[in-house]
């Protein structure tokens, strides 16, 4: 039954991806100026040169032909050539992707782990002082723009206290290897991960708390109490466990948001990732590169949501059963 679900989601994803490709392609086509203009601005060249380049890059063909060509190339996992980097776009993206993934996975772990833990702490005693305090506190945290939080963290921890590096992903030209390098990268990631993760922490905290408030009212909690289970056991094994499922769904839905958020965070902390690449592409008017980044992000989001769906089947057996019936 998991396979049926997976197959159906995969087929749906292909349609979605196709819509994204065509939609983004047409949007970026509408931009004034093309790759040749961008190239000529940086290198200079005469009208003949422009003509030649347009022909060589296939830019003198009709929009539809170019879309077809693009889709055909895409089938071969070819995203085209970046004008700014003079390299295949796929290579440029693959080079930057790990940094963004590292940032996203760490920030997700921080926000989901700490957020749900604090949510359980607050939701264990609904209406108590700590519940109200955490609830208002998380709302305030949720109102903080990530990039600004990043700057404040830089001012405090990198400029004033000098505990942590101000930006970058690792110490440049340090030729560290193995564990030393991993530790170096971890230290560089502390601030960007905090800036990105703390905002979403509030989201998971609030969802956990609200979910627990719903579960508290249900009969089986009363039954657990009547059975004489300890409060700790009721909270963890019964209430929190049942409130956790919606958070897993949120994990998938938030992945697109977090990918968007990392654009600004990467810019604040000069992390050479996908988000900063997007900003560089915008600055250089490198539309094919921007198109490639958007597609990569969409594929990433689709895969994360697929993974969440599969995880869900294992976490909640009811889901797989009902999907197979439908």
């Amino acid at each position, binding site marked *: 039954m998991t396979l049926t679900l997976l197959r159906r989601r995969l087929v*749906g994803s292909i*349609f*979605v*991806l196709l*819509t*994204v490709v065509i*939609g*983004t392609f047409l*949007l*970026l086509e*509408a*931009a004034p100026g093309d790759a040749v203009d961008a190239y000529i601005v940086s290198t200079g060249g005469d009208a003949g040169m422009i003509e030649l380049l347009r022909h060589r890059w296939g830019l003198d063909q009709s929009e539809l032909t170019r879309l077809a060509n693009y889709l055909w190339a895409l089938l071969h996992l070819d995203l085209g050539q970046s004008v700014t980097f003079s390299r295949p776009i796929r290579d440029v993206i693959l080079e930057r992707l790990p940094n963004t993934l590292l940032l996203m996975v760490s920030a997700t772990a921080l926000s989901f782990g700490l957020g749900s833990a604090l949510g359980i702490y607050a939701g264990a005693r609904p209406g108590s002082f700590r519940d109200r305090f955490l609830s*208002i506190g998380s*709302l*305030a945290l*949720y*109102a*903080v*723009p*990530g*990039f*600004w939080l990043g*700057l*404040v963290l*830089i*001012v405090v921890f990198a*400029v004033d206290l000098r505990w942590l590096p101000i930006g970058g992903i690792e110490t440049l030209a340090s030729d560290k290897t193995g564990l030393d390098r991993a530790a170096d990268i971890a230290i560089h990631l502390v601030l960007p991960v905090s800036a990105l993760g703390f905002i979403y922490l509030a989201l998971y905290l609030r969802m956990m708390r609200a979910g627990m408030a719903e579960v508290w009212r249900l009969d089986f909690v009363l039954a657990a109490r009547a059975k004489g289970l300890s409060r700790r056991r009721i909270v963890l094994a019964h209430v929190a466990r049942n409130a956790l499922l919606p958070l897993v769904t949120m994990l998938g*839905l938030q992945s*697109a*948001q977090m*990918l*968007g*958020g990392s*654009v*600004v965070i990467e*810019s604040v902390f000069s992390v050479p990732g996908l988000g900063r690449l*997007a*900003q560089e592409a*915008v600055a250089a*008017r490198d*539309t094919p590169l*921007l198109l490639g*980044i*958007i597609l990569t*992000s*969409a594929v990433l*989001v*689709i895969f994360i949501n697929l993974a969440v769906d599969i995880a869900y089947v294992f976490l909640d057996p009811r889901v797989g059963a009902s999907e197979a019936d439908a």
Partner: protein
Amino acid sequence: MSPLRRFLRTPEAFAGAILLAALIAMALSASLLFPGDPQAIAGPAMLPPFQDWSLPLGTDRLGRNVLAELFHGARTSLAVGLTAAAAALVVGAVVGTLAGFAGGIVDEVLMRITDAFQTVPSFLLALAFVSVVGPSLGIVVIAIALGTWTGPARVARAEVLSIRERDYVAGARVIGMHPLAIAFREVLPNALPPVLAMSSVIVAAAILTEAALSFLGLGDPNRVTWGGMIAEGRTVLRTAPFLSIVPGIALVLTVLGVYLAGEGIVETTAVRRGLS
């Protein structure tokens, strides 16, 4: 008790109302208190706050009055936040109603498009759109709405699906009303409450996205924005961190005010409809 008094009774909603009132007052009084161009040079550069009482919050790197910029920035934040959210809610409600009411192939196509929009990170989409069309206030509004209409669309569709089988809809069909008239005059108004309940979150998200766009230099260059001020201050972060911190605090208080007031409104209406 009147809804307003009930709304103001919860401390959270009260705080939210005060924050929002202050913001609106700032936006409305900006040209009265600080006439002329807020981007004009007003004094010596990088004057720290609380030194000169004609420039209470000091000046930035170019000697512009920070307080005047803050007031004019409130205007941009509020204008962009409200219009983008309104556009997202209208588009979302219309798409959701059409999809839910028409069903079949229309539903399928509209929802796949919604899926596609939700798959692309909305900030990346906004970034691409602004960079293609060029930064101006209207474009920033459209760019933000482009990434936020999907949530309201899904909620409206779900609500319409539950409404369209009701008796009064069947009644409207029997008397020969045009399907579009039924969809938009009978069904849509009844599907609105849960959609409108999302508005505070959407306004807040719109304000934050606008700030992030202007922070990256993609805001309207002719207007003062808080995000732009933070970016300006960033260049002198080591020597004058207050230039980045002050507009950020304004941003936090604004978004917090929107959330708190929104929660208060949802709670008040939930009480009125007997939901809690």
